């Protein structure tokens, strides 16, 4: 699977590289504006970079799905499917590639964002005063750095689970469209509707799962309370992964 992941990366590296260049250019622009004391543009470049980094999540999500869909429709799929590997390894390599790219951009976000905030704080007293006030406010309401870290982990975990749920369900729909629905009219529409129905169906079921702690009082409790829902989603991801692999194994038609 790792060998396939290497080729997945090589096939799909253009978009992440472009994204990285955009973030890099904005970082250089941001630092230049700081150095030249262009206050207005500091805010603009900082804002644009934050938006670019946040949107990278959606871009990776869309690219991951589009790349699989494109591959099943193109002759280059022969290359992948002629390799003596299981269909689960093929799907796994695509998911691993998406995960690694998402983690990479997550790290870029986690490193650049606090650094840039500190730089702005050091340069402009107003911002420093604002962050100091924010810290005081946090202390007043009983928040600590530990809470922030737990919250960040919780958010990242939830984002990753949701990311994979969408990707795996999209893979399943695309596979359905290319296998059992291959000769049906409106197969694209049918698979899109199926994706919507399954996704919202699962979300509805998830809402019905009772929370472990009804009214969480801190971040740890909040994390514990959503744990059953996350576990349910993870089970759905695993089931979706095996369903996609099995469909490809039993019904592949390239």
């Amino acid at each position, binding site marked *: 699977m790792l060998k396939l992941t290497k*080729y997945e990366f*090589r096939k799909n590296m253009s978009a992440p590289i472009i994204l990285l260049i955009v973030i890099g250019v904005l970082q250089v622009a941001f630092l230049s504006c700081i150095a030249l004391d262009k206050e207005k543009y500091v805010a603009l470049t900082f804002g644009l970079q934050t938006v670019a980094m946040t949107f990278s999540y959606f871009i990776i999500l869309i690219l991951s799905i589009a790349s699989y869909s494109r591959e099943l429709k193109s*002759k280059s799929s*022969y*290359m992948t*499917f*002629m390799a003596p590997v*299981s269909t689960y390894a093929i799907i796994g390599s695509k998911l691993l590639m998406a995960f690694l790219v998402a983690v990479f951009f997550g790290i870029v976000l986690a490193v650049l964002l606090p650094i840039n905030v500190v730089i702005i704080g050091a340069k402009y007293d107003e911002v420093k005063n604002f962050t100091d006030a924010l810290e005081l406010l946090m202390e007043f309401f009983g928040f600590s750095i530990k809470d922030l870290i737990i919250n960040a982990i919780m958010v990242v975990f939830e984002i990753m689970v949701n990311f994979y749920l969408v990707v795996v369900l999209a893979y399943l729909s695309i596979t359905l469209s290319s296998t059992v629905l291959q000769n049906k009219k409106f197969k694209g529409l049918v698979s899109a509707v199926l994706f919507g129905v399954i996704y919202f169906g699962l979300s509805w079921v998830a809402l019905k799962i009772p929370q472990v702690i009804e009214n969480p009082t801190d971040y740890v409790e909040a994390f514990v309370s959503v744990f059953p829902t996350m576990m349910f989603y993870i089970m759905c991801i695993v089931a979706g992964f095996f369903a996609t692999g099995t469909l490809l194994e*039993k019904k592949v*038609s390239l």
Partner: protein
Amino acid sequence: MLQCQNVMKKYGGKAAVANITTNIVPGKIYALLGSNGSGKTTFMKMVAGLVKPTSGTITFAGMPIGAETKKHIAYMPTEGFYYNYMSCKDAGNFYKDFFEDFDENKYYQLLQEMNLDPDMKVSKMSSGMTAKAKLALTLSRNSSIIMLDEPLNGIDIIAREKVIETVLQNASPNNAIIMSSHLVDELEKIIDYAIFVRQGEVVMQGDAEELRTRYEKSIVDMYKEIYKYD
């Protein structure tokens, strides 16, 4: 070695392959003959594991077609099948990574013989160059079954001779080579066994020499006879 029993593949209600039963043994060169849409490519794809049969069985050395049989079956599709970014060198590296039977030295030697630059991107190649690159890649595997789908398509008459020569050099008592082509006269002189497919069914098959003796006709004439109304 490769056994196909009542193999059928339907797309919607239409059978691309209606009924193919054949047995491929090592040490022979097979010609899979038929007009456009007769089911040759679909049959090869099923053997390569790219398409699942609707019914019937295909086994290689007793194993159903799957990841394990792909280690022993090499398939050259009619279309270019490289990833967009790939040069011949990249494609060779891919084969080296996945196929234990891939002979890298043989690959580069074949590329040289076919005047192909290993660093040239396949997407920038002419159709003739792509056809030769595909052939070099497939024939560099020392597989038990080598399937070449229309290997002479898009290749000029001089290069055709080179292709035929290369195929003959790769034939051995340990492997079976299956070729499909419309250019039957080019294949006539090298094949050991002919399989005539029409509308997805095997209408005639047998040892090439025996068929010639029995029907007192060349394979080319038999082809013309069978497909004259297609």
